[in-house]
């Protein structure tokens, strides 16, 4: 893997260049932001199917006798309720209850788990895992294995209503019957892989993890279908507009070390009753007192985009800041998410966003902006 200008490249890098992708830096990786255009790719995912290179995301395998105890300490959701093949969303918090990363936890076996973590947080999380493990009284390191397999594997996302029909020819596992937030091992283009019904777009979809060389073969097969127009290669640009429409948080925007899960509306993934959970005292305090800010959805009346940091104003007073904002191709309007004072979230007064110093009227709407099946 080459490291031009310090950035990492996924095993699919040259294929993106060959496909005419515009590349950008993201989380320490050189990734495709678009191939044919952000709006066109976004619409293709909503209407048919899009294909995403997700190989930059961290894939960390945790196993051993201490795996459950360790994961219960590391992340907020209850790992014990995971059945074999089940996946859960979870948060890794610091001792003040702020979010260090948002992750997916997969139960692969009795004491075998996979954590998928944000690319930008991979090294931070690996270091933090050592610290959390060190803090577990009497926990023997010999009874836990932590293995980062990010650089040797590929992860491909296939997202959209036609996901099953696009992906099934290359996957042995019957995809139709795979339940949402579940996964299973499967041969994929003949190699040993893992497929889950998960995604970050609000559409039906799958994420397939496989060894690098098989990942390239899968990508090339899918790209062939994309060249017929039945699917689209999709980059980080539309990944962001899709997840924003679906009301999903993005680390570095809705989630940060200084933002707790309750502010982000993610309290249902937090179980501070777990006795060894790192940050449990702070999380209990915040849950009891109620968060000081709340995440809301905004629709801007005109098409000005209210980006991260844009002040949110009610009757001349700043009541919060935008965390993410963009154009929503599905709603054909400017949308944003913002952290605002709880009373503003509750009362939903008319408000303004101050874009480049000018006031643009906006209103609070329920999240998500878009829900699959509701047209």
């Amino acid at each position, binding site marked *: 893997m080459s490291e031009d200008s310090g950035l990492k490249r996924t095993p699919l890098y040259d294929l993106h260049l060959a496909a005419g992708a515009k590349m950008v830096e993201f989380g320490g990786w050189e990734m495709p*932001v678009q191939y044919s*255009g952000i709006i066109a790719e976004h619409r293709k995912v909503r209407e048919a199917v899009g294909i995403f290179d997700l190989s930059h995301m961290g894939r960390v395998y945790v196993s051993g006798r201490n795996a459950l105890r360790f994961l219960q300490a590391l992340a907020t959701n209850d790992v014990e309720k995971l059945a074999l093949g089940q996946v859960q969303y979870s948060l890794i918090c610091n001792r003040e209850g702020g979010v260090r990363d948002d992750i997916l936890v997969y139960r692969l076996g009795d004491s075998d788990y996979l954590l998928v973590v944000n690319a930008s947080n991979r090294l931070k999380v690996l270091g933090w895992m050592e610290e959390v493990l060190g803090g577990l009284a009497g926990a023997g390191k010999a009874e836990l294995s932590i293995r980062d397999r990010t650089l040797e594997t590929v992860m491909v996302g296939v997202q959209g209503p036609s996901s099953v029909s696009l992906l099934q020819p290359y996957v042995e596992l019957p995809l139709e019957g795979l339940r949402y937030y579940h996964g299973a091992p499967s041969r994929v283009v003949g190699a040993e892989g893992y497929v889950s019904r998960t995604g970050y777009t609000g559409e039906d979809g799958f994420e397939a993890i496989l060894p690098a060389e098989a990942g390239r073969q899968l990508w090339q097969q899918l790209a062939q279908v994309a060249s017929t127009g039945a699917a689209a290669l999709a980059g980080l*640009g539309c990944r962001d507009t899709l997840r924003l429409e679906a009301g999903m948080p993005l680390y570095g925007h809705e989630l940060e070390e200084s933002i707790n899960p309750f502010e982000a509306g993610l309290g249902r993934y937090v179980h501070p009753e777990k006795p060894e959970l790192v940050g449990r005292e702070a999380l209990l305090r915040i849950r009891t007192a109620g968060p000081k800010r709340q995440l809301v959805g905004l629709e801007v009346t*005109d*098409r*000005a985009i209210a980006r991260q940091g844009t002040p949110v104003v009610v009757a001349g007073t700043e009541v919060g800041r935008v965390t993410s904002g963009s154009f929503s191709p599905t709603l054909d309007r400017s949308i944003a998410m913002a952290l605002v004072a709880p009373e503003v979230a509750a009362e939903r007064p008319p408000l303004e966003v101050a874009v*480049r110093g000018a006031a643009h009227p906006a209103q609070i709407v329920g999240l998500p902006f878009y829900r699959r099946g509701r047209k």
Partner: protein
Amino acid sequence: MVPKDLRYSKEHEWVKVEGEDAVVGITDHAQEQLGDVVYVELPAVGQQLEQFKPFGVVESVKAASDLFAPISGEVVAVNTELAKSPEKVNEEPYSEGWMVRVRMKEPSELNNLLDAAGYEKLVAEEG
């Protein structure tokens, strides 16, 4: 390549001279670099523009970019179609994607702009 009858600024705006007026927009290269345009902030009719100073903003999905006036003068018309259909900037940057019409204050300022060959060279060098 780029239309031969236009003049170009280094900031990727084009000028079409029509008598005393200059019609202004951004080039195909510029729209391609920006990506999908979702919003264009333009001055009001009557506003005075100064050559090479910012006069508006073109917003794509990923970022907002300043527009720089390629010529000085008073804005006599604004393309209000762009409010509903900003994608015209991507689809027809030299025709339906036009942005403002300016009554030129000093036509000799056109000499500060590049011709088609000069602009093509600039783009190739940026490349």
